[in-house]
């Protein structure tokens, strides 16, 4: 896989998403649950806005001095025996990883969940040299068994699958003969994966945050698979996006706290692990520790109006509040990074060519910006993208074109058309009063969504009211 997960046109992806009723109810259920937990765990702190300010300041300071902190990190890691490889492109990153695997004559690699390795298409590169690569995160393992179905959420990758489908996959691929009870499915995965952990030659992880002062890599998980991957194989490779770094352990504390609460509403996840290269082969330290620092288009974002997008800590809080994601699901974005942050980041990393619909896949309700623990002004960046795209397309016709495509799609898909019809009245009223709302691109989304009123209601108030209305609607 690379950053792109589908070659279907945008509206076909959206159409598939909207017609997938199970996926839509799974997504809305997950959003409600994750957002509810986040709200509770942040409210409990009482000073959440101060935490956000602090986290933002840390991220901004680090990005402004990124060359300094990366050098400090590399020197500290190498001084303790680590091997640091700076990769400008995904090809460079993959070639280095291949070379380590070949030198170790490794036959089996076991992996913990990592977005950046998806982004660079690392698994394919490893398979190309005849080495097996096994995903160990439960969700990722399920997707891998199911013929590499792409992830649909960055924290809960197999969100779009129900337990019956998972049971069927296990049965077909691994002769599973038990029930679809999640506990039983989980226990089966445990038995299957234990053997892989114990027999793998190389373990590969991502990196939630590197710590410059000590050359350490930190990993945040609930399952403990990242611990398995780094405690058992003799060679460890950690792949990190170049912006995922903090100055010291003191800032690590703040960002890990923000990540856990924002992603899953936990104070800390079950495991937060800090790993530092070590020359003394004490206890279970891997004999070789490689760290691959990946640019892959990130440096082009530095110094531009989009720089704040690099503050992202991949918590998915913006995804969990997004009304558009709620209705179209992760696969519609066509990128491993879905939701608002995906709509901002994917065009930056990959260019506009295949992604120019993404910045329009937003109602600009700003719930994402409110939810972001590091205060990325997501909806403002989406507006910037729209401006750039319109300029790039040489005029203002793009929005119109997009809307026409959307209308054509909806008109030929009765289910979507019906959905659109139901909300058309109130939407037209609202859009009519919205300043500069551009009926063009908005129209597509509002055919299936109502928009929050622009009269100054808070998003959450609107959302709760809408949920109440929906419930009442269902009861009657």
């Amino acid at each position, binding site marked *: 896989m690379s950053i792109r997960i589908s070659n279907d046109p945008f509206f076909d992806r959206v159409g598939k998403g909207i017609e997938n009723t199970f996926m839509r109810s799974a997504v809305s259920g997950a959003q409600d649950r994750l957002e509810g937990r986040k709200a509770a765990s942040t409210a409990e702190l009482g000073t959440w806005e101060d935490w956000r300010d602090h986290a933002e300041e840390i991220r901004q300071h680090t990005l402004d001095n*990124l060359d300094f902190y*990366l050098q400090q990190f590399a020197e500290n890691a190498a001084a303790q025996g680590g091997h640091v490889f700076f990769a400008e492109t995904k090809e460079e990153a993959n070639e280095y990883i291949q070379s380590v695997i070949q030198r170790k004559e490794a036959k089996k690699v076991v992996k913990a969940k990592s977005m950046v390795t998806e982004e660079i298409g690392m698994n394919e590169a490893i398979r190309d040299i005849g080495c097996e690569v096994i995903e160990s995160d439960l969700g990722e393992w399920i997707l891998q068994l199911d013929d590499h179905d792409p992830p649909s959420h960055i924290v809960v990758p197999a969100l779009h699958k129900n337990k019956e489908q998972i049971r069927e996959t296990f049965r077909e691929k691994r002769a599973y003969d038990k029930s679809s009870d*999640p506990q039983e499915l989980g226990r089966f995965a445990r038995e299957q994966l234990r053997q892989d952990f114990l027999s793998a030659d190389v373990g590969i992880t991502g990196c939630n945050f590197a710590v410059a002062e000590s050359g350490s890599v930190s990993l945040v998980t609930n*399952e403990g698979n990242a611990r398995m991957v780094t405690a058992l194989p003799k060679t460890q490779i950690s792949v990190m996006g170049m912006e995922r770094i903090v100055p010291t352990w003191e800032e690590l504390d703040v960002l890990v706290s923000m990540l856990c609460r924002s992603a899953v509403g936990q104070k800390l996840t079950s495991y937060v692990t800090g790993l530092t290269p070590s020359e003394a082969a004490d206890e279970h330290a891997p004999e070789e520790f490689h760290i691959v620092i990946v640019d892959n288009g990130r440096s082009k974002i530095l110094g531009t109006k989009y720089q704040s997008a690099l503050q992202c800590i991949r918590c998915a809080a913006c995804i969990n509040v997004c009304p558009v994601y709620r209705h179209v699901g992760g696969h519609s974005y066509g990128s491993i990074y879905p939701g608002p942050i995906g709509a901002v980041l994917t065009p930056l990393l990959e260019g506009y060519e295949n992604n120019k619909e993404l910045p329009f896949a937003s109602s600009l309700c700003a719930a994402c910006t409110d939810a972001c623990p590091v205060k990325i002004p997501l909806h403002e960046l989406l507006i910037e993208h729209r401006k750039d795209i319109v300029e790039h397309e040489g005029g203002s016709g793009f929005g119109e074109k997009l809307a026409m495509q959307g209308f054509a799609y909806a008109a030929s898909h009765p289910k979507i058309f019906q959905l659109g019809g139901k909300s058309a009245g109130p939407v037209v009223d609202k859009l009519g009063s919205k300043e500069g709302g551009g009926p063009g691109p908005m129209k597509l989304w509002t055919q299936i969504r109502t928009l929050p009123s622009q009269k100054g209601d808070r998003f959450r108030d609107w959302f709760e009211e809408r949920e109440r209305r929906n419930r009442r609607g269902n009861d009657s």
Partner: protein
Amino acid sequence: MGTIHNQDAFLANIADRLGRDRRMKGVERPVWKQQPQHDVFAGASPAELQEILIRQCDAIHTSVDTTEMADLPDVLAAALERFGSSPAVYWSDDRFADFGVDQVMDSLDESKAWTDENREEMTRFAERAKIGVTFSDITLAESGTVVLFSAPGKGRAVSLLPEVHIALIPRSTIVPRMTQAAAEIHRRRKENGTVPSCVNFISGPSNSADIEMRLIVGVHGPISAHYIIIEDA
């Protein structure tokens, strides 16, 4: 000594994009405008922190015993019994003797203290073990977390591979939250120049919500976690 590849071109490009010369030294962290992390449970007494910890354990599916020093051997023996006793694996760590529980471990049908000499054999034993027993180095009240610093004899597998993880927590190790543990690691780095090769923050058993968002306990690591708080201070 390790190696560094392609650093200069990579970092020069970053500096270029940021529109300035490369910064190789002299960058200091600013005086942060906000640091709300220091206010969490500031001034709480050891007994209060213990209460907060116990409350949080309920949320993370972790059972807790509390005991005076003198009763620790009996309490540990009873806990081991409850979770199936043996095989058990534990750290080679002076605290087992200092707290008078080395004999409890020794007297089990089948138990081993971790040694670094024979990694493969120890890993196989830990994989087969029912219970792993460790001592918390720092304990975080807010999140119900035991912090384990790796060191010779303190194998990472002990808290990871067995079905049950029992962590012994001297009350004197309890601090409000991750902030205090991070400050301690930062201090060690400044004073000794190194940090432990592995620092594990562990909060309860392994779990997953990857199937229909339902809680599954023990997907990769322990299925059960049990803490014994020792009222040593």
